[in-house]
């Protein structure tokens, strides 16, 4: 007869840069149930909307997360712009697209490094983060920041990229592409890495749908859904299709994210080739009145920015549904039946961002 025990996992754990706690119910070495516990560092950023006016709140939105900071700022701005009927200049849309895809490469590279670290492949971790550093340099060069960029504003962008900068970025991206191909061979082909990722943590297409999974976690289970197809920023002018896999295990999630890195490089190239000349912002007149639910495809998946305005400079409500929050039920499902030793890898493959979840 198997022995049933409860093992606390987190909130402090080597594989978790941020705090989340799970009560793992084990039968011998198999997980039969996991009960999550979050809220260790809840910051109440949504509450701050009562004290910051709708223009100032862009800076708060950016600070929801240090990895997706650009996209949080942009998602909030797009929601307010929809309410106010503001059409931002075409060049601003392309700039948003380029910075969004740089954020995606940065986030996926960070995740690859963390994954390599979790299965003990330290040199692979180092190589992933070395490549990521080049994206951060591009951010610093184009925005002045490496974590918080402050280039979004309601009505457009605060900064522009000139032709020389874009040309330089294309050269850097070619280098990143070549180097990523090298590490991708190890992530997807190395026998030791495969033994940790293949056949672990299955999530079927039906489960992904029923449990409300989003992003690469969902697409790795065969659902071709990517909110960039909704047509915000300059994505309607870009040729791309959602990256999917039919397998649904940890390997598939790694595969999807690696292919999304190459896709992001391609999107940036397309955007740089098509970016029109012109202004990067329009003046904002009046005050927002109404509500809108903006959906953005962040690196970790669908983020939703619900904004409700009342015709004054202070908003009634800002609510951000982050991708990690949506992926928690799916993660719990994948944990059922897994080996205790696979729990850290499994948690990592949803690419959890507790900072976003604890907004």
């Amino acid at each position: 007869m198997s022995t049933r025990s409860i093992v606390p996992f987190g909130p402090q754990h080597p594989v978790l840069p941020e705090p989340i706690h799970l009560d793992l119910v084990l039968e011998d070495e198999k997980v039969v149930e996991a009960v999550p516990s979050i809220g260790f560092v809840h910051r109440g950023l949504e509450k701050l909307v009562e004290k910051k006016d709708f223009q100032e709140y862009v800076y708060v939105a950016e600070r929801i997360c240090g990895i997706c900071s650009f996209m949080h700022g942009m998602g909030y701005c797009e929601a307010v712009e929809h309410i106010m009927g503001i059409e931002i200049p075409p060049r601003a849309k392309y700039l948003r697209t380029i910075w969004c895809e740089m954020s995606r490469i940065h986030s996926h590279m960070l995740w690859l490094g963390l994954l390599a670290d979790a299965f003990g492949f330290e040199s692979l971790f180092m190589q992933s983060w070395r490549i990521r550093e080049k994206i951060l340099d591009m951010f610093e060069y184009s925005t002045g920041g490496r974590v918080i960029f402050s280039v979004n504003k309601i009505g457009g962008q605060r900064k522009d990229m000139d032709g020389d900068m874009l040309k330089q970025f294309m050269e850097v991206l070619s280098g990143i592409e070549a180097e990523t191909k090298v590490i991708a061979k190890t992530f997807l082909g190395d026998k030791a890495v495969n033994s940790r990722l293949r056949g672990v943590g299955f999530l079927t297409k039906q489960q992904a749908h029923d449990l409300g999974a989003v992003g690469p976690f969902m697409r790795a289970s065969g659902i071709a859904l990517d909110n960039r197809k909704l047509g915000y920023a300059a994505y309607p002018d870009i040729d791309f299709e959602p990256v999917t896999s039919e397998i649904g295990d940890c390997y598939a999630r790694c595969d999807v994210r690696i292919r999304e890195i190459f896709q992001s490089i391609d999107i940036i190239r397309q955007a740089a080739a098509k970016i029109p000349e012109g202004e990067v912002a329009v003046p904002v007149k009046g005050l927002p009145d109404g509500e809108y639910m903006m959906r953005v495809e962040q690196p970790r998946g669908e983020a939703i920015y619900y904004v409700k305005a009342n015709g004054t400079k202070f908003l009634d409500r800002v609510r951000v549904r982050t991708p990690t929050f949506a992926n928690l039920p799916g993660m719990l499902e994948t944990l059922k039946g897994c080996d205790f030793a696979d729990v850290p890898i499994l948690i990592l493959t949803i690419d959890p961002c507790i900072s976003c979840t604890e907004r």
Partner: protein
Amino acid sequence: MRDGIIMEVGAGSLVPEVLMLKHEGYRLVQICATKTEKGYELTYSFGQAYKLVNLRLKLAPGAEVVSISDIYEPAFLYENEIHDLFGIKVRMMALDYEGNLYRIDQKNPFQ
């Protein structure tokens, strides 16, 4: 229902409407609470491919709402969040954290 619609529902018709959406293959996208002058409004969002539809339930202060977590399993997280931040009582949640989803000093800060 057309994309982006916000359809108002009463407390009695919430569950039937949610069941209908489940039957039509929609996934739960999110549940959001907002404080209003007359109490609260809950917005339940459901997605099918890229289409998003919303059900809106208006609640008087102190009113309770029934959980939809037996229809949509992920709802328990949203419902616990609504309870912790707004103080709205949600009955029959699949997993009830009893006010401990978020470890925050101020109880029900949005109430």
